[in-house]
């Protein structure tokens, strides 16, 4: 206590006279500061290590399977996509194990949920949320920083995995990488990120709604399970209840019903993701809906150009962007005017 008066006066003389130590009073710098801290936190957390381990395991296992299978896949001339060696690396399988992109459709939600389910509520339970929001930062910056730091990390992870895969393929086979393969693979990474983004913003939303991180995590996992397992069953049950006997329908009507079922399925984000990912990775897919005989007539089973594939998946992409943005908007709405009390 004796030297306290001295030191505090030293501080005060420095602080009251000149305010030089204060930087420009722009609250937007805070955004970068929060992102830096969040990324550091994520990287040092055990949870992240576990997730990286899981993704790496998936990657190595599926790569091993597809590399051992690549010769047959590459020389299978019945398959119009057989010439795309690098796409085959990601999609081919010996049927013992699902290919990489299917495995990722399970892992991506897990990644998104686990990065976001305690974003807000753990801060609130720790009492750090009040402390944070008593500083001159915008509330939406906090939400956005939580979201973007997780997306950056997942993005870096996927990007390096994919580049590793491409590089490994180059070294192992010496086959030249086509430009359109690169575009397709990067598109696939982007689509996967969007899928992660949806579950991330959903879990951030739940972390605002629920006070307990466990509840938020469980409900996010529940929603994911609902969309992947129960939603298709429910859609089938409901549609079958009022679907007339197909024997009495014209072909156009049957097509119409099929189209309708598919549209209902596409409310689920995992359907959107699977559609988009397969279209990008398998260039011979030309439509995601049913096609009539007239449309098929005269078509040569050959791969589509990149642009056409992108055109096909564009609705899926916008659907996923819309779903993530929607979740984020609700989160924003709930968080902006809420009372912050520890």
């Amino acid at each position: 206590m004796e030297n306290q008066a001295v030191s505090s006066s030293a501080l005060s003389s420095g602080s009251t006279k000149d305010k030089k130590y204060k930087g420009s009073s722009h609250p937007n710098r805070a955004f970068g500061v929060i992102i830096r801290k969040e990324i550091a936190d994520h990287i040092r957390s055990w949870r992240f290590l576990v997730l990286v381990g899981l993704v790496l395991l998936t990657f190595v296992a599926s790569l091993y399977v597809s590399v051992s299978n690549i010769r047959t896949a590459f020389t299978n001339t019945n398959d119009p996509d057989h010439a795309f060696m690098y796409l085959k690396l990601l999609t081919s399988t010996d049927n013992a194990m699902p290919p990489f992109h299917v495995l990722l459709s399970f892992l991506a939600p897990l990644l998104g949920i686990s990065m976001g389910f305690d974003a807000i509520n753990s801060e609130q339970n720790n009492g750090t949320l009040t402390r944070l929001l008593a500083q001159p930062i915008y509330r939406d910056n906090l939400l956005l920083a939580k979201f973007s730091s997780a997306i950056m990390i997942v993005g870096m992870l996927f990007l390096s995995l994919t580049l590793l895969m491409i590089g490994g393929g180059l070294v192992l086979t010496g086959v030249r990488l086509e430009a359109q393969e690169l575009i397709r693979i990067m598109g696939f990474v982007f689509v996967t990120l969007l899928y992660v983004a949806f579950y991330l913003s959903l879990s951030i939303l739940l972390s605002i709604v629920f006070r307990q991180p466990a509840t938020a995590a469980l409900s996010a996992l529940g929603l994911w399970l609902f969309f992947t397992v129960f939603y298709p069953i429910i859609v089938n049950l409901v549609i079958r209840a009022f679907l007339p006997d197909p024997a009495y329908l014209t072909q156009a009507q049957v097509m119409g019903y099929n189209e309708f079922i598919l549209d209902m399925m596409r409310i689920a984000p995992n359907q959107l993701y699977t559609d988009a990912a397969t279209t990008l990775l398998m260039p011979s897919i030309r439509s995601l809906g049913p096609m009539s005989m007239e449309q098929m007539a005269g078509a040569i089973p050959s791969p589509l150009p990149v642009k056409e594939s992108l055109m096909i998946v564009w609705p899926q992409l916008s659907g996923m962007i819309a779903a993530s943005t929607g979740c984020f908007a609700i989160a924003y709405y709930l968080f902006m005017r809420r009372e912050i009390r520890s």
Partner: protein
Amino acid sequence: MEPIIQLRNLSKSYGTFRAVDDLNLDVYRGEIFGLLGPNGAGKTTSILMMLGLTDPTSGTAHVCGYDATKNPIAVKQKVGYMPDSVGFYNHMTALENLIYLGRLNNLDESTLKDRAKAVLNIVGLAGSMDKKAGIFSRGMKQRLGLADVLIKDPEVIILDEPTLGIDPAGVKEFLSLIKTLSQQQGLTVLLSSHHLHHVQQVCDRVGIFVGGKLLAQGDIASLSAHLFGKEGAVTTIKTAQLVEQPWPLEAEMRQWNEVTAIGISGDTLEFTTRHDITPRIVRHLVEKGYGILQVSRKEYGLDEIYQKYFESSFNENLNHGKSSGIFKRAFFGQHKR
């Protein structure tokens, strides 16, 4: 003088419950204002509204000239707030926690570390700045919370229950630190507490806050004069032997002009008088042959003031048929919820 904190008709309702009811309050530059009230009186809610952390149902809160609801960022740049249960990132050290906060406040990066160390030195945490905040005791966290507030060099400091959970020696040190800082840097301090003595020690002015309403404000002397002025003084005398019932002297002493009431219980006599006549009472009793063990004159401190206000609002609540058990428990419980 323009008040630095200006609350006008501030109200906050949660459903039908009015947590803060038509609050008007002015706090002026450089003073230490104590917001005193039992748990659940609406102190924290009022403070949250001053910082824009919650929206008032009606009314306005102006801090440093800015509307706290519409322009909370400007307010938060000038106000340091220490919540009642301040939390830190447990995996970061005290210094890292503080530097993070400094960065959020846009402090200059090159001098930030030195400044953080200086602030930690002031609050007495220089020795444990490299320890993880997770292992800090309650009192240390409270100090770190004060460091949080000081590093941004605020104009106004708002402390919510700052002395909660600190040992008595620590409280004394903490309060004198606040007082020193307020004097040296001309800081305005608003502190809320249900601990009367802490408030009494440092505050220039006190507001008594019960049931969402500000019942009285002013310095302690004027509050006590206002409340107890009409009641005069109370002298309590403890005698060596039991006072016999009925007391023969009672009728005689009731005749005295100054005496308004006499209370007898066992060996204790309590005289309520218009003004202080303790020496005369004692002399008279000694002459009548009573042995006197103890004489005390009741002085009105914040305790009594508080009790008085609390009683009146308590009775009011009883009359309104509110559950008294809950209210009582809330009041006597030490921990806030």
